[in-house]
């Protein structure tokens, strides 16, 4: 039983990371209909940025988190302006390829700046919490708390503010949103800023407990895609549910079957979703 609870806890922590990546993906997809392949690498650059800022100023972890979010959000706007905006009226495939180009450029930039080695980021608390046969590092508790706070903020923003509701409206029907006087350009920028900010925060949260290296963004990216597809592309709630489900599938299949099964489980769920309910569990009409 303790083992099961321990795995459940691990899955929760992992699910939180996937949530932060997947909700960014789904917001951008809802607005632009582009799967942003660079999202995983934005998460990775959040972790590296934390490493860089920690070595530069001796400021504390919270300061770094705020700084990273403040740097990443404008970065998202820059990426959107330079890379995706010129392709808006071109065939859709070009935007996918562009996302791949951005992915490569970010990874290349990080390798150039920090080298391909692993780096270490120190968290604010290093202890381990243990009770009743299960144990968890303080930083992981922090990951869960941080994610929950961020997601609550995001929920409030999307449901209760005018900007957030415009964002939702746009992801449901772009033309209609346009006729209602919503500034589509500005909303696209906002969507990108939110999604890169979320990825950056995810990176900072995970940096102390996971290995930080240039390819760290790829494995969570694929799982986040699977989660977004499961939940329905464009739906934030679906992405959150999907993330926890995928994390659970991954952790438990690794524990009880084998490590190879973890990729299979995630991917199998994604394929099954696509075959039987292509719009995902929370997606509306296709």
């Amino acid at each position, binding site marked *: 039983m303790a083992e099961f609870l321990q795995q459940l806890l691990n899955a929760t922590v992992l699910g939180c990371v996937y949530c932060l990546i997947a909700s960014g993906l789904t917001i951008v997809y809802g607005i632009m209909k582009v799967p942003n392949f660079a999202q995983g690498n934005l998460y990775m650059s959040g972790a590296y940025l934390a490493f860089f800022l920690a070595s530069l100023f001796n400021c504390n972890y919270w300061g770094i988190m705020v700084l990273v979010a403040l740097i990443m959000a404008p970065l998202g706007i820059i990426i959107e302006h330079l890379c995706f905006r010129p392709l808006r009226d071109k065939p859709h495939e070009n935007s996918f390829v562009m996302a791949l180009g951005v992915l490569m450029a970010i990874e290349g930039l990080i390798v150039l700046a920090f080298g391909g080695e692993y780096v270490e980021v120190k968290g604010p608390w290093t202890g381990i919490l243990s009770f009743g046969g299960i144990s968890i590092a303080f930083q992981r508790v922090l990951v869960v708390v941080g994610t929950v706070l961020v997601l609550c903020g995001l929920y409030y923003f999307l449901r209760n503010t005018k900007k957030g509701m415009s964002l939702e409206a746009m992801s449901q029907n772009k033309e209609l949103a346009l006729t209602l006087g919503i500034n589509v350009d500005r909303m696209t920028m906002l969507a990108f800023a939110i999604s890169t900010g979320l990825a950056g925060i995810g990176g900072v949260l995970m940096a102390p407990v996971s290995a930080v290296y240039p390819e760290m963004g790829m494995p969570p990216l694929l799982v986040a895609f699977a989660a977004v597809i499961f939940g329905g592309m464009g739906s934030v709630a679906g992405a959150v549910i999907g993330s926890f489900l995928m994390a659970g599938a991954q952790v438990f299949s690794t524990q009880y079957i084998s490590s190879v099964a973890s*990729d299979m489980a995630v991917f199998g769920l994604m394929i099954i979703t696509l075959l039987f309910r292509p719009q995902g569990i929370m997606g509306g009409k296709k």
Partner: protein
Amino acid sequence: MTGFFLSRKLWMVCGIAFLLVFPLFLPTDIKPFLLYLASLIFLWTMLCVSLNLIFGYAGQLSLAQGGLFGTGAYVAAILTVHYGVNFWLAFLVGGFAAGMLGLIIGIPSLRLRGPYFVIVTMGFNIILVSIIENLGELTGGVTGLLGIPPVSEIGNITFESKIKSYYLILIILFIFWFVVYRIRNSRMGLCLNALKNDEDLCQSVGINTMFMKLQTFIISSVLAGLGGALYGSFLGILTPRDASWHLGFDALVFLIVGGIGTIPGTIIGPAIMLLISELAQSVVQIGMLMNGLILILLLIFLPKGVVGLFGYIKDFLYRYNEK
């Protein structure tokens, strides 16, 4: 006169002639290196041809091409290394295996459109790599498969010298091009063009788009697998990286540099990019950044690649002549 110099046929004949006679006029000191590089370019071209068929002609961006290439390479290499099968048989089996894998990947994933297809093919490729890494003895796991024998002889022609293997790879590449050229100019090619532009419309005039896409995907998988089989025996060593989706990714960059949806683009792209990366070898770390930036800049300013640039020059010259 301009018409003659700008005609497509003339350029094609010149290009083929150049590829055929190019090894004969090389200075001896750098000859082995240049032949090696040229052969490598041709092998990459094969991967680009396969991606060009499925993405350039049918409009389906598959990121599984690297995995299919790697499947062909691994199947052929396992057969020759562990079971001592003749290379040419292993080569064909490699292509067949990639085709079968293409069928397995294609049936579920080709039902999907746009971004879903891209993600699912990428996912299949990641699964494939993790399978290869975990097959242990058979594939050599993470360390890879060593000592793959070179291409075996046909009759009494051996392919041990660099120049012979150059011609062998070139001839196989010509066959690839010919196949794709014939597809392009057949009824199927026209259907693919229609499919790329509007799938629903294509369906409405009675074309079985799913079957058409599946057919194309299998052919492109077989091409990738055959190219991979040659690639494995050319390098003599395979690691799981040779089956990763990065390969398909690089091929995509090459294809966009060369010009998507064109036959000359499939060789111009790899040639330019591999030459650049050879020249920039001292700063190998910038490879990824450079590829990314080239991709971004080309998509914004020159989405049709180098071949497209020739098109612009041609238009300009025609207009200049008319004045």
